[in-house]
């Protein structure tokens, strides 16, 4: 189980790998909060996530609700049964929530949504961080 957060194309990109449950919530929350000081939107790369529980889903909802105007929350490439959980919990119906078929779609969405891209270069780690964890 690993998680990393970085700023890429003005978006906070969080890459998770493995199983995540309530025990991981605080660690992910801290990383995302740190990252969001430099971005208004968050995208989770979920292609290697094999399990999430209600605690992680609640965290996603909490992050979604905390984003300001213009911000949005994306989850890229979730497995079908994880995507089903987004529907069951009502996350899919939230206006600022998107499921992405590919991480590249995130950049396109962001280009459409904002004319003020972040000053951080692609791939740059969160400035005050220690971003890697897990």
């Amino acid at each position, binding site marked *: 189980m690993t998680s990393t957060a970085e700023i890429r194309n003005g978006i906070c990109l969080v890459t998770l790998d493995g*199983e995540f*449950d*309530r*025990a991981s919530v605080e660690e992910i929350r801290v990383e995302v909060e740190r990252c969001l000081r430099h971005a208004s939107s968050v995208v989770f790369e979920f292609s290697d996530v094999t*399990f*999430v*529980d*209600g*605690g992680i*889903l*609640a*965290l996603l*909802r*909490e992050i979604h*609700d*905390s984003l300001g105007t213009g911000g949005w929350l994306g989850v890229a490439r979730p*497995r*079908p*049964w*994880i995507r*089903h*959980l987004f*529907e*069951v*919990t009502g996350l899919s119906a939230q206006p600022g929530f998107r499921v992405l078929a590919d991480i590249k779609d995130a950049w396109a969405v962001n280009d459409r949504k904002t004319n003020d891209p972040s000053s951080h270069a692609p791939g740059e780690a969160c400035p005050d961080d220690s971003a890697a964890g897990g």
Partner: protein
Amino acid sequence: MIAPPAAEGESDHSAFHLSTSGEEAEAMCDRGQGIEQGTWDLTECKSPDTSSSPRKTRCLRLTLQPDLAEVAKARALVDEVAALVHLSLSRTFDAKVAVSEACANGIEHARSTVRVAAWLLRDRVLFEVTNDGSFCPGSAKRGQGRQRGFGLPLMASLADQMHISRPTDYLTRLSLTFFVAPSPFDDVVDGPDHLVSLLSAKRQMLDVAEAELRAAAETARGAQRWCPDPGALADAVGSVSLAPSLYEAAEALLGWAVQLTGCSAGLLRLAEHTATLDGWIPTVAYFGLTDCFLADEGVIRSDECMCGRVAAGMVDHSLPFISELGSFVWGRAQTIAEEFAAEALGEVRGRCIREGFESIAIFPISDSEARTIGVLHLADFRRARFASHASTLECACRVCGPLLIRGRADEQASLVRQKMAELNRC
């Protein structure tokens, strides 16, 4: 959930009875099986002298310490179960989420150890997650605006059935059922024609249930005349009719019988397929029985032991312990082998006798055409508990059979509706 029977006189076995309920029984059972905390084992609870036929009930157990990091062990248990019953990947995932939520709830809110039992039945896996204290699904939000409260909707959405009960005053149990029997819905990708044929089959099932219900009304009217206790019979029919699912209907009938007789224990079996009593007969409701007993006896074959033979109607009516309607009722089970020849008793596993029961009664439950679809099995540590109520219990089993068939059809209809809703979303 079934309320405990009213106390009735002194029991010679009260100490044993008390020690075989709730938490202590589980502790006894676990010690007996040599299961360690935090590990699990495929426990068949097979008694040494059971018949040579393969047992169909298996039970895997796990105890988690009150630490959220322990929940991953429960998910590993679900993986183990899923491999044994060939659960699909997506259903395995659903079960992992639901069981994980139930365990996390127990650890977070009750801060107690959490015991997980996975019952591998013929057509379903039943996960029972038990913790000390009360069930607390959490509020929608907790302090600092942080989100909470997805646990309950997740469990209710992902499990085929969810049931919350309090087996004792100080335990809470969440039961999560996942059907694994050849699920026709797994193959819906075959296209709309396949779905239409499935719905047609379910429709026929509902039609049969409707016909049963009409016949049941007629049977009930007749039974009111020949039942020695029409008031009690009306109570049974009322409570079974009002139950919203098969399980709750079965629990209602068993609970009524337990209240009527004040007995220590009981279970209710229903055949896999209505009106074709062949193969295995699983337990769908139980009360007052140890987990070890249930693991041994949870599923029987229809020609196995006295219970199976009563269900199959393979009984000798000339014997004093067999009633005119084919029920087994006896009040001195501990000495039955001394009173009757082995040929008269037939092949019996003797599990009830080893459990210490003196009074044993097994009543066939039948459909509107008097075909047996299951049995109601009552037991007590005291002698001669059931003879006085036998006729009333026989009446109730005869009248409530069609109502249980209706409950099963309703359950299937609910699955169809759920599947349709999912397809509509797609």
